[in-house]
């Protein structure tokens, strides 16, 4: 036994330090290697293969080439779900940035009890999931809901029917999304506090007013944070699911049929796993295109302090 240990040890010492580090590196990252090979790379290949078949996982597999993709192209519901998701994303993300940024700017005015304000505005962003979807399905209830009670108090006698109305269902989801905008507020607040005060002092000497300072110092210095929120917001909003699933089930008349809800319906309810996989790939490419678009555009509008020095 002792001999074995000794033999093992001498074998170990025979390896050079570099070789030992190579082995250690791959041993430490083993969880991620398995994760990557099985759950990412392997699954992506498998997912593409499934998207070329017709299968319910029970009765067998039938290879049908790109049929799922051509059918998707001719599927009105797919286009509907794309429109719904795009509408939601491109309304919520910019509005979320404006709301989050506005709160952060207000909180950055040397307010008293900053911690308390921050907690209140951040709180809705902490809670999420099914419980919040249920809460909001009642908040948005046309008869007994909080929102319409508020609107009636403001003198609107005939408020929208929100999640029961084809026109107002997506706006209702957007309002609900804005309620959680406090999450990005924290990032903007940290960004604001990181802006060097010398910049403002220099602007004061030049006689700049608040407004010019805001547009010429604050906003440019915050563009990296805005950029980050834009990216995360687009990626997250395109995958919206829980609200639609819990609150409307995609209705009324598919007005809230989001892409992931449609994917879930086709895959796990209609057992059309090939079709759902094709849908997942299309979703991936749509997200990829918008992400790359934002990244490409960033050279024109995102300002990195570091670049100045070069």
């Amino acid at each position, binding site marked *: 036994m002792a001999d074995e240990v000794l033999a093992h040890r001498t074998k170990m010492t025979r390896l050079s330090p570099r070789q030992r580090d190579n082995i250690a*590196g791959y041993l430490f990252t083993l*969880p991620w290697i398995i994760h990557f090979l099985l759950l*990412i790379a392997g699954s992506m290949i498998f997912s593409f293969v499934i998207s070329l078949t017709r299968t319910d996982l029970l009765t067998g597999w039938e290879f049908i080439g790109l049929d799922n993709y051509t059918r998707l192209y001719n599927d009105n519901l797919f286009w509907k779900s794309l429109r719904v998701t795009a509408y939601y994303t491109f309304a919520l993300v910019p509005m979320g940035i404006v709301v989050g940024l506005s709160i952060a700017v207000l909180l950055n005015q040397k307010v008293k009890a900053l911690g308390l304000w921050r907690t209140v505005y951040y709180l*809705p962003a902490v809670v999420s999931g099914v419980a919040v979807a249920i809460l909001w399905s009642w908040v948005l209830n046309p008869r007994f809901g909080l929102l319409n009670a508020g609107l009636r108090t403001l003198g609107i006698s005939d408020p929208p029917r929100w999640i029961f109305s084809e026109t107002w269902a997506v706006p209702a989801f957007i309002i609900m999304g804005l309620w959680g905008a406090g999450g990005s507020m924290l990032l903007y607040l*940290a960004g604001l506090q990181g802006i060097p005060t010398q910049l403002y002092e220099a602007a004061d000497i030049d006689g700049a007013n608040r407004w010019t300072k805001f547009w010429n110092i604050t906003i440019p210095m915050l563009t990296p944070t805005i950029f980050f929120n834009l990216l995360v917001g687009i990626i997250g909003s395109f995958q919206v*699911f829980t609200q639609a699933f819990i609150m409307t089930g995609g209705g009324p008349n598919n007005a809230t049929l989001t892409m992931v809800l449609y994917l879930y319906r086709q895959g796990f309810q209609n057992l059309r796993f090939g079709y759902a*996989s094709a849908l997942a*790939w299309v979703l991936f490419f749509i997200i990829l295109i918008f992400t790359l678009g934002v990244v490409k555009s960033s050279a024109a509008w995102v300002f990195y302090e570091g670049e100045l020095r070069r």
Partner: protein
Amino acid sequence: MTTQEQLTTRTQARDWPLVWSKVFGVVGKIVLYGVLGLGAFIFLLPLLWMISTSIKPEALAYNVPIIWIPAEPTFRAYTEGWRTLPFDLFYRNTILMTVVNIVGIVLSSSLVAFAFARIRFWGRDTYFFILLATMMLPAQVTLIPIYVIWARLGGVNSYWPLIVPQWLSNAYNVFLLRQFFMTISPEMDDAARIDGAGWLRIYSQIIMPMSKPALGVIAIQAFAWNWNEFMGPLIYLSETRKYTISIGLRLFQTQQSQKMPETMAMSLVALVPVLVMFFVAQRYFIQGIVLTGVKG
């Protein structure tokens, strides 16, 4: 405009704020706190309404206009709701899954992050770049193939599909921890290496103890994520007795959707652990958000 005139207007422009700045300062403060207060009121209102509705007798809940404070508050909605479905079981299942996954995430992600931050190994930088790139992949792409694999392995209707992936680390947490480990000075582990300590010793006795704040952030986020996780349990768990709180709540809602106090009470019960955790460990929540985003 002559130079003289320009000079006067400029002096006026400079003097003007001096005279009015105090008045404006006070008015500005009032407006600022007014706007902040109104905003905070609107942000809190849905949660307050939720609490209020959950302690109302059935009849009062549907009253228009809203009665905020019921004359006779009651916990009836809580006891009735809790009895309708095995919520204690849902709670136990969720706690179990969450605790196991927090341990898994912290352990696996810190090991991987440690290697990326400290060990020089062949191909490390390319490998790290691939890791970052995978963060862009939406989960839906791999949802179905992973489901197919679990179905083949007989893992459907068990917790394995909800636990195993989390014990294999994830790109987001690895990235976050690696950034933190990089800020720890390598002098200590250089000294330890000279004393003959291996990488595992440096990881467990130097880096981990010094990274408690970052590990706390990861643990808190893992807690909130697992507690709220919906799609995974929805797809994999089929027996009611195995349900987690999120899908149990959804089942409750489909059965009792017409009862406002009950659905509100049970939703609140599901939210309480996250809320308590938020108030206890607010620092970590906020730190986590800032750690992730500011450097982009």
